[in-house]
């Protein structure tokens, strides 16, 4: 078995048993990246030297018998909207940041380093995490390892593709409206969006502050649990991150193998309506049948505000916050500055006109419009009211059921370029994922089968705030019954 076929826990255990070295693990990942990434284009930057140095350090510590962290020697990729002070620029896949290098580490980067992880590089994304296909990157689109002509989903498409193509066992992404779960579904990997406030956002370049959360990509539920374990918990630098006293971080791995019994699964009729691809529905229903076989009870629930209203609400809240968060990119203090401006205002305008891509500009304009005086009440304030109704839908549902299930995305991976001319069609890729962010609850996407064309399909499981431990156990119940993780995407077979 190739080192890159090991999942993170297997790799970590092999390292601890000294069967492989951290340098070998990192070397194997770097070789896989060198071999595959010219086709997949998952990475924006690879820090080969830094990763080898870090791996050698871990080897030294292992040799000296020192205690090492939970992820000691395990290679990890992080989405390029998280700050890292290692010399690699933080680009958010945008020209506007120029060659900006963060002078500080994100909280999650600190946590990874503390647990001995080896960060090998930074992955591609839709510019500022705005998009569902990773085609909105200023530095080129990422390809789906299962079909290079298809998109990997987005916005964390680089991290999803890197894990799917076995370039790294685990990676971090961020999820504002489905940006972890949808690419996880389209790339056939596990992707988890934690409860809002579970993981510190300090050092995550903000898209929509009240929706953004950092979460793990992995090929197994246990790896996702471990990466969540490492990154979750209190951070005083993020006021929206919960305190350890109010919400201590449970030991996710300790309880993982315990099935949830009895298990009541809510199926919202809104998640199985018009727009859902027939083949995707069939695959998802077969996964539900597995749960039924395990003794789960399937219950229909109603989330009246959580599909069509959710998309409208999401695009008002997210664009409004984005228009504000992205105001700082003006060419004054850092990042890209136009060279041909006449005066200060012209410098602002040209720097932003030249630095941002079309989708980002579209969302900044939408957000500025929604926040304008005279429109605020009709849009932003109304959206906040609907947001509360969506939260209410879930609160009500979770009084009846332990979790909610449905497809992660209405379709499997679509073709590159298929939706770039139609923003609304693109926005509908998120129809099942955005309500989770609006409600602030936890959600996971699990590989649950393939279409006839060999494209992965994702099962989305949603659970109430701060119940990631139960969510992971529910996910693990299904994973034990299937073997999707063993299947390798064609691009890997080609390289092997």
């Amino acid at each position: 078995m190739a080192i890159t076929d090991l999942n993170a826990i297997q790799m970590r255990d092999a390292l601890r048993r000294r069967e492989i070295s951290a340098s070998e693990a990192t070397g194997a990942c770097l070789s896989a990246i060198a071999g595959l990434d010219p086709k997949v284009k998952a990475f924006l930057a690879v820090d080969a030297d830094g990763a080898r140095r870090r791996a050698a350090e871990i080897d030294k510590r292992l040799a000296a018998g020192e205690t090492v962290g939970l992820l000691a020697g395990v290679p990890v990729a992080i989405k390029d909207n998280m700050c890292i002070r290692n010399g690699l620029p933080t680009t958010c896949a945008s020209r506007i940041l120029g060659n900006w290098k963060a002078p500080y580490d994100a909280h999650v980067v600190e946590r990874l380093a503390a647990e001995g992880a080896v960060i090998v590089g930074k992955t591609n994304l839709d510019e500022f995490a705005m998009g569902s296909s990773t085609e909105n990157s200023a530095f080129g689109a990422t390809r789906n390892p299962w079909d290079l002509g298809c998109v990997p989903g987005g916005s964390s498409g680089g991290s999803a593709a890197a894990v799917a193509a076995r370039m790294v066992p685990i990676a971090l992404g961020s999820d504002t409206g489905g940006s972890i779960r949808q690419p996880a579904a389209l790339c056939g990997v596990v992707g988890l969006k934690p409860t809002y406030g579970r993981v510190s956002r300090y050092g995550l370049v903000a898209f929509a502050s009240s929706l953004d959360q950092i979460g793990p990509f992995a090929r197994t539920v246990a790896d996702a649990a471990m990466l969540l374990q490492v990154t979750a918990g209190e951070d005083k630098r993020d006021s929206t991150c919960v305190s350890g006293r109010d919400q201590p971080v449970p030991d996710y791995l300790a309880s993982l193998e315990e099935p949830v019994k009895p298990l009541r699964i809510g199926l919202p009729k809104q998640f199985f309506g018009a727009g859902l691809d027939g083949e995707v529905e069939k695959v998802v229903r077969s996964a539900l049948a597995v749960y039924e076989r395990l003794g789960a009870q399937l219950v229909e629930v109603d989330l009246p505000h959580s599909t069509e209203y959710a998309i409208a609400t999401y695009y008002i809240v997210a664009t409004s916050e984005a228009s504000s968060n992205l105001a700082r990119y003006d060419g004054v203090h850092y990042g890209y500055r136009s060279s041909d401006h006449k005066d200060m205002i012209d410098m602002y305008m040209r720097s932003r006109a030249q630095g941002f891509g079309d989708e980002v500009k579209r969302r900044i304009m939408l957000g500025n419009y929604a926040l304008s005086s005279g429109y605020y009440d009709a849009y932003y304030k109304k959206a906040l009211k609907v947001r509360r109704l969506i939260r209410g839908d879930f609160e009500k549902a979770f009084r009846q059921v332990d979790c909610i299930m449905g497809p992660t995305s209405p379709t499997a991976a679509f073709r590159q370029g298929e939706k770039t001319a139609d923003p609304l069609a693109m926005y509908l890729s998120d129809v099942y994922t955005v309500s989770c962010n609006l409600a602030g609850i936890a959600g996971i996407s699990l590989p649950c089968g393939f279409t006839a064309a060999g494209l992965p399909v994702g099962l989305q499981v949603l659970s109430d705030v701060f119940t990631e431990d139960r969510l992971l156990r529910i996910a693990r119940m299904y994973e034990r019954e299937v073997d999707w993780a063993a299947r390798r995407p064609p691009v890997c077979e080609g390289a092997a």
Partner: protein
Amino acid sequence: MSAELEPTIGLEVHMHLKTRTKLFCGCKVEYDVRPNSNVCPVCLGMPGVLPVMNREAVELSVRMALALGCAIPDFAKWDRKHYYYPDLPKNYQISEYDQPLGVGGHLDIETSKGTRRIGITRVHLEEDAGKLMHAETGNYSIVDLNRTGTPLLEIVSEPDVRSAEEARAYGEALRQLAVYLGVGHCNMQLGQMRFEPNVSLRIGAGPDGKPRYTPISEMKNLNSFRSVERAVTYEIARHREEYLAAPAKYTLENLGKETRGWNDDAGTSFLMRSKEEAHDYRYFPEPDLVPFMPDRKWVEELRAGVPELPEKRRRRFISDYGLPEYDAGVLTAERAVADFYEKVATSVKDPKAASNWMMQDVMRVLNERKIGIAELPMTAENLAELVALVKQGTINRNTGAEVFNKMLATGKSAAEIVKAEGLAQVGDSSAIEAFVDQALAANAKAAQDYRGGKKASFGRLMGEAMKASGGKANPQVVKEILLKKLGG
């Protein structure tokens, strides 16, 4: 007609809070340090950073709001106010828009027309911006972000101010209050306090019976009491002139609110932005901060901790201690001075004598040496001892003044000095009789003049008798014996 044009002025006052660190990060608040030396990713607004509220800043804000008689709502929140300027790295300012932490208070001010009560609309906490300096030569500006993120308290008054004098008095009273409470240093030279008067004139009533006004001029960033007074005086006159020239046009309905700058050298104001050019700040709730939902017990503790305010104390000094208005004003201008005085007054149980010492001796030294009362090399207890010695007749008032100076010079107590230098006055009448006799013998002419009706000669004889005693005789006893001997 012009008699009806009554100035209607509201003030927005900004003051830096006396916190050790900035509002959202751990950078120090310092003035006159190397540009861009107190900065970090958070106050530089770098990608990925988040603000963390400074608890001390919130506490000082609530203390000031309570002292102004404001209600502290159960829910307040922060909002983002957007505008593009290079001294604002995020291009939005974190402020409080529609739900501030303090609402509906008042401040009483002393004016030539007596006490006036100025309503306080709201008190809110926000962050200050950096400083932009334009190069004298060359087509560029430089930015210093040390000030970025400094906690700034904004106090908005009702349009209750009626004159430039009142505007100034209001500013001074706010400053005194903030310093008194330890909320801010309010050093004007350091830009720790800035004023934005909103000036308009009330033009009688319109056809609908409702009052009408001239446009509102918001005067930006005045940073001294003098400039407030001058700018408001100028603006009132300018409004009057504009209105009288075109009464139908120069109204609030027509022109709305405009933003004006003040040229202190020229003594004139100039238009910065008209109503049409007003910014749309696109306020919305700051998603990176949790709302402020104060614990009522905490608020009540803060309320209990608010000391007696200067104006109230001044009135109490007048009514309870019988001090003249002027003395009461001087003694309550600073909290430490008022505390010092009250300690002396209650200790010697003679508020008038204590006030006399404070006004004549203590304040003189503070002014001469340009020091605060904390730096006076004497405690209230030390002074009380001296005042008591005089009151008991151990020494007389003149000797007391000498002892006071010696106390300052040596740091010794009054009792020590009196004892060491044998300054205790002589109260024994037989001894004093000898001094009086000595004085009469040596000044027979003066005694004769006095008996002949020239009462003014008494002073001379009194002085001579005191001199004979080396200044130690009890003047009251000298006076009695002298009068008796002169047959008066």
